[in-house]
């Protein structure tokens, strides 16, 4: 049969897959999951956060399989997530009970409970450390020993009830807590995002947004295409929160472990009218929280949460459809990459249209 179309698809795919498998290990070296968990924690955290799946082992496995590409690792984990029946929601967590490992405020110097710098690269000079090229078991052991020699005694109990900076602002009459909204939050992975969107839909979209996208839009918001000029970080916390589930055949909620989160409240000065209809200023907050230790993303999330609350369509970063429908990693990378698929028929259709315009003009 003289038929030759786009044949050979099957064989081409198999070869492409074989190349991927080969190139991942062609040097004879390979990463094991434990090494990834130990040495690439920020990447593991980024992938868990963007995947909406808190599991360090699976995230590390996804990173291994994806050869370190965050978009590919998130894709793998999100797809895996689709195979898991979801039976329960955890009980509401009060982040006031966070076991804090790092906590700073850029708004007040002396905060109740103190500033706790914790693990942070912020003040490290970013010189390439060429010693790491030749890192050995011995040099690693030395680093561990010298840290432990000087490490202070841990005070875990004192770190679980640290007051919130926002409470101080409220005491001063500069912030008014909104009325408690105890409605069951929407879950955009069970019922798709709809517009007008709810606050819980916005927060959920932002927290699972692609880090780069959330950071870039947050930056655009404060740089000049948004409504707020310069928010202040009221409080940034990194720490562990406990999770419990109700209704597993017991009266008491069932405790099933703790997860690490990053939480940010940013303060934004806002004009309001007081009781005498006089214009005055007060503070509003933007809120961010993410799985793992993801500071820049969480700050950007808090900026975008604030700007989206304002529902000011004139600014792109206050338009929920623009922001929330643009930041999902699986959606943006998927649709961009679909341009690689053949478009022969649609292109032929367009070609036909353009040619007939030209013919009419002749």
């Amino acid at each position, binding site marked *: 049969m*003289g038929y030759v*179309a*786009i044949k050979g698809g099957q064989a081409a795919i198999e070869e492409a897959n074989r190349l991927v498998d080969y190139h991942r290990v062609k040097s004879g070296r390979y990463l094991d999951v434990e090494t990834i968990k130990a040495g690439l924690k920020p990447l593991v955290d980024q992938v868990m956060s963007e995947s909406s799946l808190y599991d360090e082992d699976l995230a590390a496995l996804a990173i291994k399989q994806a050869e370190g590409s965050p978009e590919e690792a998130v894709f793998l984990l999100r797809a895996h997530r689709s195979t898991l029946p979801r039976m329960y929601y955890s009980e509401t967590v009060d982040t006031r009970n966070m076991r804090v490992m790092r906590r700073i405020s850029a708004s007040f110097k002396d905060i109740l409970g103190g500033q706790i710098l914790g693990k942070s690269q912020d003040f490290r000079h970013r010189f390439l450390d060429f010693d790491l090229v030749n890192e050995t078991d011995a040099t690693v052991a030395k680093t561990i020993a010298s840290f432990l020699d000087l490490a202070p005694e841990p005070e875990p109990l004192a770190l679980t009830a640290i007051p919130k900076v926002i409470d101080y602002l409220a005491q001063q009459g500069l912030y008014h807590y909104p009325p408690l909204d105890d409605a069951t939050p929407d879950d955009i992975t069970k*019922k798709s995002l*709809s517009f007008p969107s709810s606050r819980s839909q916005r927060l959920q979209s932002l927290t699972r947004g692609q880090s780069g996208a959330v950071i870039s839009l947050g930056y655009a918001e404060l740089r000049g295409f948004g409504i707020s000029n310069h928010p202040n970080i009221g409080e940034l916390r990194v720490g562990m929160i406990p999770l419990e589930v109700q209704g597993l055949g017991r009266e008491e909620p069932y405790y099933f472990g703790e997860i690490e989160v990053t939480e940010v409240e940013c303060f934004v000065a806002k004009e309001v009218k007081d009781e005498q209809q006089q214009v005055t200023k007060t503070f509003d907050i933007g809120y961010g929280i993410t799985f793992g230790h993801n500071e820049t993303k969480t700050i950007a999330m808090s900026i975008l949460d604030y700007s989206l609350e304002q529902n000011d369509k004139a600014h792109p970063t206050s338009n929920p459809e623009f922001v929330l429908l643009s930041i999902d990693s699986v959606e943006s990378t*998927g649709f961009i990459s679909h341009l690689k698929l*053949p478009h022969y028929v649609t292109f032929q259709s367009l070609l036909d*249209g353009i040619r007939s315009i030209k013919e009419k003009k002749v």
Partner: protein
Amino acid sequence: MKYQGNYGFLDELSKKEIRRSILKAVAIPGYQVPFASREMPIARGWGTGGLQLTLSLVGPQDCVKVIDQGSDESVNAVSIRQLIQDTTQVETTWHTREATLIQSRHRIPEVPLKEGQILVLQVPIPEPLRSVEPSEEETRKLHAYGEYSLAWLKIFEQIIKFDQGSLSADHPVLVNHRYLMAPSPIPRFDNPKMNYNEGLILLGAGREKKIYAVPPYTEVKSIDFDDYPFTFETFAGKACRLSGLTDVFLDEIIDPKTQTASYQTNDQSYLLEILDEREKEKHG
């Protein structure tokens, strides 16, 4: 890597949820039913909406056909068919008549659908008004009011500029006199096939999280003006170089040596069937 997951990839509760959305879509022809689209093992924009429909519906008694731009052998069709087969061990076919479930991107097969057959179309942009109204909140209102003048206005503008109302694929249709619908980027040539067709047509948009449907025997009309009626791509004076067919959508193939164009039937399995039949006749 051997498949180790659930039948049809998705967990059973998710499949049930998707089937419920399908029922709603069938009950309201052309209406976009929002659904909690799951992330799939293939990328968003590569047919995840269609795939979720297929995997929620497929069972051991089915026979599945997958085509991409008219071809069963195109890489993405191969990839999707493989995924369906790996996760279900379902029988697959190239023949449109044999299939109970056909997943397609950008084409409706040349062989007309029969009762009992389901055609699943992959949809990139389910909102027919999106090119004229970027906001979802607004377009939902326009659908509720049946306010579609923007869509006609767009065609009117094309007529003013180019003296013709239909220019490319994905030409909007009015379903059952009520909902304006994006038929997915099928060529205009395929639009009339939707009208009163015998099979069930389901459309799935994974990234945009919408499911909609054209039930059997439903009126589907491509929108146009009385004095500028809807037209589809013409292949006047051209014929398939292998079969001589003239009543099918043709691919334009450029000979790299002579730089001249020739034409070939785009629906690959239909072409093969025709050629096979003639081969048989020739050799008795």
